[in-house]
């Protein structure tokens, strides 16, 4: 699973690498603010909030081309929508993992573009 399709983002921005980097970094800065409440909602088994927050994170991830994270959050959003949070802890773990991979990939490639 692709962690970050940076090329697709750059193409959508008409080749503007600098803008792509700004958008990706802006997204990474926002993630902690989104993950905290999402984790709390999962712990409290609050399905509507899980659905709403996972949906927002999915949208941002999709916007920047963070494909794996977008798919992981889509699964958590679906669990929230179905009001079935039995596996939400594991799904959140997967989201966490994708976030770490994304941060790793961005730091590994920053400055080389």
């Amino acid at each position, binding site marked *: 699973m692709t962690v970050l399709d940076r090329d697709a983002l750059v193409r959508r921005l008409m080749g503007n690498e600098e803008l792509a980097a700004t958008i990706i970094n802006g997204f990474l800065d926002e993630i902690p603010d989104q993950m905290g409440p999402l984790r709390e909602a999962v712990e409290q088994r609050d399905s509507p909030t899980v659905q709403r927050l996972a*949906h927002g994170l999915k949208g941002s991830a*999709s*916007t920047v081309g963070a494909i794996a994270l977008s798919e992981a959050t889509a699964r958590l959003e679906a669990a929230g929508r179905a009001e079935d949070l039995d596996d939400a802890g594991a799904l959140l773990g997967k989201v966490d993992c994708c976030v770490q991979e994304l941060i790793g990939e961005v730091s590994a490639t920053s400055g080389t573009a």
Partner: protein
Amino acid sequence: MQPDSETLKFLVVDDIGTGRSVLEAMLSRYGEVETASGGEDALSAYREAAASGEMYDLLLLDIDMPGMDGITTLKKLREFERLEGLSETKTVMQTASSTREHVQAAVAEGAVGYLLKPLNFVDVVEMLVRLELIEESESGLVD
């Protein structure tokens, strides 16, 4: 009259911060961009714009927002325009996954187009040209 692209005024409404920054970045070369994170925020922006006498040339409204969704927001903005005697702002809906019903409801409220997320710069600019907000020659898409 063809609006001067330097004075174009956009309002981007999206609950997702990254979505707002992407459109802001794309549109800022064509005019002034304001953003709102939801329907209530958009209404406040409308009130301020009306008070200043400079309404928006284009509203870009996300359909799928928590709380007040894009369709409800558009209805409220239209109601505000009617009450204030303002003309309808050109409106483009943006969506990652909307149903035909959503799009029809937006069209019923006078939306003139929609953009699929994740947004593509070329699609956004082509929309500006189609809505006659900018000339094709100033789109940056033609060599």
